[in-house]
């Protein structure tokens, strides 16, 4: 077995983690529960005939009450119902933009990592370029050219986010293709497609789960920011546009916190859940992260003495 001996006398295995069943911790389960609840809410908002009510001047910024839990907005419409309706576009745009990012990033990352030489170099420079593109100005320019709209928003966010995934995937593929079992497959007569499908992709796919959930979080956040600046187009009710309306109509000056806080809080909770999921996925897929430092720190003295 390949391994190194730590100064404490503990052998730390550098070998690839053994294949094991995915075991999720409490954080991951909490994250999944949160995301499932939000998904159900979004589905309800999409398919149930919910109506925030007509404009009602008697209820402008009316505070929360028993029949309207989150009060009313500047036009006297129910905020809670708007929040439920707004969940669908928020989550759909977040998920699809992340999917676009992971698809572009994964493909180009595998391509760059697997090909040596000029193609890798060109793709790497492209990734560098997209990492330094400032997100908001870029999105504004693109929506100014293409016009606003949810589809455009998805593509813009996807373009903004793909390079991170691409870099991570490229690094993994690059180290993966140098492995001896890849050479062995070559010596067996395997073609590039076989090597990619059988030996490289299984190493990359767990990584896509991790970067994918991070991408969802970032996509939702970017989307809210873009919508706040009015780049999502009109007629779409989402959490980002709710915050925008609240800002434009001076909700805070009227002490109507119930118009600002709930959509912001929803964005925060969903993003946090995505981060948790990414963290525990990474921990579950890369046992080295937790086990090595635990062993060396807490058991080093005793084990070293026993070993001596």
């Amino acid at each position, binding site marked *: *077995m*390949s391994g190194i001996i730590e100064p404490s006398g503990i052998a730390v295995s550098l*070998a*690839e983690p*053994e*294949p094991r069943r995915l075991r999720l911790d409490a954080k991951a389960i909490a994250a999944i529960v949160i995301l499932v609840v939000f998904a159900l809410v979004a589905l309800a908002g999409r398919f149930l005939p919910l109506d925030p009510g007509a404009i009602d001047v008697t209820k402008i910024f009316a505070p929360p009450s028993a029949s309207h839990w989150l009060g009313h907005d500047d036009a006297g419409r129910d905020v809670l119902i708007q929040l439920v309706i707004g969940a669908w576009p928020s989550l759909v745009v977040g998920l699809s933009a992340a999917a676009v990012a992971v698809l572009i990033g994964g493909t180009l990352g595998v391509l760059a990592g697997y090909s040596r030489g*000029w193609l890798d*170099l060109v793709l790497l420079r492209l990734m560098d370029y997209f990492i330094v593109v400032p997100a908001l100005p870029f999105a504004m320019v693109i929506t100014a050219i293409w016009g606003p709209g949810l589809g455009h928003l998805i593509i813009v966010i996807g373009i903004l986010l793909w390079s991170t995934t691409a870099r991570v995937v490229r690094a993994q593929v690059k180290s993966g293709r140098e*492995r*001896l*079992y890849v*050479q*062995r*497959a*070559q*010596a*067996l*007569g*395997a*073609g590039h497609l*076989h090597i990619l499908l*059988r*030996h490289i992709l*299984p190493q990359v796919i767990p990584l896509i789960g991790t970067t994918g959930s991070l991408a969802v979080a970032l996509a939702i956040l970017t989307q809210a920011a873009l919508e706040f600046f009015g780049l999502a187009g009109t007629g779409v009710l989402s959490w980002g546009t709710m915050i925008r309306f609240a800002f434009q109509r001076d909700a805070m000056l009227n002490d109507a916190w119930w118009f600002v806080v709930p959509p912001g809080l929803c964005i925060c909770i969903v993003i946090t859940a995505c981060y948790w999921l990414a963290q525990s996925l990474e921990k579950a897929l890369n046992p080295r992260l937790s086990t090595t430092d635990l062993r060396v720190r807490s058991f080093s003295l005793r084990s070293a003495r026993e070993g001596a």
Partner: protein
Amino acid sequence: MMRAQASAPPLLELRHLRVNFVEQSLFGRTLNEVSAVDDVSIEVRQGEIVALIGASGSGKTTTVRAALGLQPVTAGEIVFSGRPMTGMGPREWKDLRRRMQLIFQDPTEALNPRMTVEEIVMEGLLIHRLGENPSRRREMIEEALGFVGLTPPGHFLRRHPHTLSGGQRQRVAIAAALVLSPELLIADEPVSMLDPSIRAGILDLFARLRAERGMSTLMVTHDLPSAYHLADRVYVMNRGRIVEEGPTKQVFRSPSHDYTKALIRAASGQTLADGPVP
């Protein structure tokens, strides 16, 4: 035992092989050139076990990698079964990589930890589309595992490499080579990563393969005792060149080159059994 005849036709011939490692700038300008293999000619005849010995860094592994087309060749020719591989397309190289199987030094690294023993042995069958149906393939896999001593085969099929011992892993690698019915095995230091107590078992496999199937083997090694016991002929390699070649006993008893003498002197601490070595 079926001994190779000096008159048997050569199976693999490397003719004046030269491999240079070239460091190039982005625009293809040569920055640095290192010669790894320099005018190496090696011949392996049908049913023969040939050892290629030499110290680390002498170019042995580069030579065998070049023989399989895994390493671009600067000059020289690779001839398999009388057929020069120079200028051959991907299909011919793929066919060559079925008839000539490489066994790696480190079985732990050479087997994909995510695959089961069955998948590992089956991989070559799928690449070369051998075995008409799943049950025939299963038969071939079990036969190969049985031959290398992993019995009963059913006990090993579903296991992952990390649950096997080092010797068992190397046996899996050898089974994965045998299942393709190759004509030549190239074993790159097949036992150097293994515990001395299990080396004999693996080396014995190569002897049995030759005795029972007339298999030719090119064994790369820096372990002189195993070369002495197993090989009909040896090539001694130093700094990318073949410095001495000949029948094993003759080379070991009366080495002519200084480097060979030094190697044998260095190894005389180990036992070169059956017969004293000067």
